[in-house]
């Protein structure tokens, strides 16, 4: 921060340094919580918290160093941490469902679809053969 007043600048500097130190300690505590958490949801909650704190750290650095591009990084970080939580929870739920049902549901659906398709294709082929034979027979009859 450049304001022209020396006392104000040093106060700003110490304020930002103090806030960054407190946030760093809290980030470490969040990481510890993620290691301790007994369930998967616990870990995801603390990872989400860590994302929030890193966002505040990046925004503080952007204001402290007067680099406005750091705020863009902060926006992208927010989007990516949101996406990470969504993807992780969806993937873990899918894995858990597969484990509960004992077999992979996608494979089962796939084989059923394949069987249906196979029967359908066989019927179609039989019909086509019959039609072709019938037309052939008609042509023959007309020739006679």
């Amino acid at each position, binding site marked *: 921060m450049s304001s022209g007043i020396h006392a104000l600048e040093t106060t700003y500097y110490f304020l930002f340094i103090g806030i960054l130190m407190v946030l760093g300690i809290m980030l470490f505590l969040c990481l510890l919580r993620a290691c301790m958490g007994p369930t998967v949801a616990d870990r995801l909650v603390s990872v989400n918290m860590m994302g929030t704190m890193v966002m505040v750290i990046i925004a503080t650095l952007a204001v402290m160093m007067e680099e*406005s591009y750091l705020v863009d990084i902060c926006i992208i970080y927010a989007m990516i941490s949101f996406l990470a*939580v969504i993807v992780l929870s969806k993937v873990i739920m899918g894995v858990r469902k597969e484990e509960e049902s004992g077999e992979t549901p996608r494979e089962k659906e796939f084989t059923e679809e394949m069987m249906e398709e196979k029967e359908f294709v066989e019927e179609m082929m039989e019909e086509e053969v019959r039609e072709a034979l019938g037309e052939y027979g008609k042509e023959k009859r007309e020739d006679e």
Partner: protein
Amino acid sequence: MEILLWIRFILGTLFLLAGMLLFVVEIISVYKLDYVLDRMHAAATGDTFGIGLSLTGLMILNGLNLTTLKLLLIVVFLWCSSPVSSHLIAKLEVATHEGEDKYGEVEK
């Protein structure tokens, strides 16, 4: 003119320190509460209110720039995205909850 700068500094610092206080409360409650859904409540408080207060403080300290608008965009984005991720985590907890503990069974 100098007094205005000092007033801006004090106002921004108040907001920023309030946000830090909320983050500290969030950490303490995450350690203190002992079930995931309770902890998620505390974490969501920090996600919306804590980051809102601290980024408001940074906005005041920064003055009126394009950077301020971007900081506002971050706050609005988090207000929209945090409930969605909380909902998904709660659904995950319901799906992976293993029956018998002192909180009883979660309804599926």
